[in-house]
């Protein structure tokens, strides 16, 4: 059973790291600010979500697991909002 959990954690965190990596590559390589922003928010939301998912079975107690999920939710909220704000500031600057 514990081997299965280990494998699950490994797979989920590995997938999360992949999304972070892809997002970072996008941030460095994409041509304009809006698409860079797009790459970054995907990495934050999905990558962190997968890392949290992989860490959930390793939490000491349900409260710690809940805190992990709350951390992800807070990053989702602030990441999505700031991406909106930066995007709008960019569009205003272009006009």
């Amino acid at each position, binding site marked *: 059973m514990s081997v299965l959990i280990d494998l699950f954690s490994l797979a989920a965190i590995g997938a999360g790291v992949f999304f972070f990596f892809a997002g970072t590559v996008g941030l460095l390589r994409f041509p304009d600010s809006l698409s860079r922003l797009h790459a970054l928010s995907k990495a934050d939301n999905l990558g962190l979500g997968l890392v949290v998912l992989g860490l959930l079975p390793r939490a000491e107690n349900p409260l710690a697991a809940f805190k992990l999920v709350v951390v992800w939710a*807070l990053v989702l*909220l*602030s990441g999505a*909002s*700031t991406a*909106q*704000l930066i995007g*709008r500031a960019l569009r205003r600057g272009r006009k």
Partner: protein
Amino acid sequence: MSVLPALDLGLALLVVGVAAWTIAARNLFASVVGYVAYGLLLAIVWIRLYAPDIALTEAAVGSGVTGVLLVTAGKRLDAIKAAETGAPPGLALRIFVGALAVLVAGALAWVVVTLPTPAPSLAPAAAAAADGPGAGLGNPITAVLMSYRSFDTMLEKVVLILAVLGVWSVGPDKAWGTAPAPLRKAKAEGAMVFLAQLLAPAGALIGVHIFWVGADAPGGAFQGGALLAAMWMVAMMARLTEPPRIDSRILRLALIAGPAVFLVVGLAGLLLAGNFFAFPSAFAKPLILFIEAFMVLSIAVALPMLVAGPPDGSSEP
């Protein structure tokens, strides 16, 4: 096991690199962003040094609040720069300033490098002292801050109040007593309002939680207070609330509440426990939490007032 040392080395190099980039950046805004990244990296360094309390403070104050402060200051500097263009400093002056900076950095580095091993430390004495009147607190950091070094902790908050007074005093005379300008001139955007409405209540709850668990786990008054301050600033940026008038009685009472309560309890210790800032050991813990609650209030009010800046008379109708 050789992965962690390699990661630590990479982290250390990254910190030095970001620090160098922050200094070298030509653009003021870019260097502020570099400074914020530097603060977040330092927080990770503190985690690696097993100092989660300092990591929390570094992330909240060193990176978060200071970042907002520097961005705001940068904007004001830009406005001033547009108004007047003075002559850039000459080569001799720049070399002189650089030499002074090298001298200070060199002296600091020399002191650190020539520290005796083991380095002189007050930690055992502090731990012993914290075992006494600070007993009952599971977090030794809080015990030391509030019991062993209580006078320092109290004076830190006085420094914060002095800083707020300094900021207020550079406003024009005719604006004295009015409210500082809003953090955003224009009407806030929908996304900002949405963020503030959702984040501020959750963040305030987390701030109080961090203060509350600070007695027994990493956390404490400064970290919790900084989070509350950040949430107030988010609400002000969304224009959900405006900065208060600086002659407001409530604002001023909240500002001085922390050090004032600390001082009164310290003086009471002189009478009841026989020493200035001594806590009767029977109820040291509730007393310390009582003081810290007012400290949280003072910090949560002082930091946004620093960011809001001096009243400039623009908020008058």
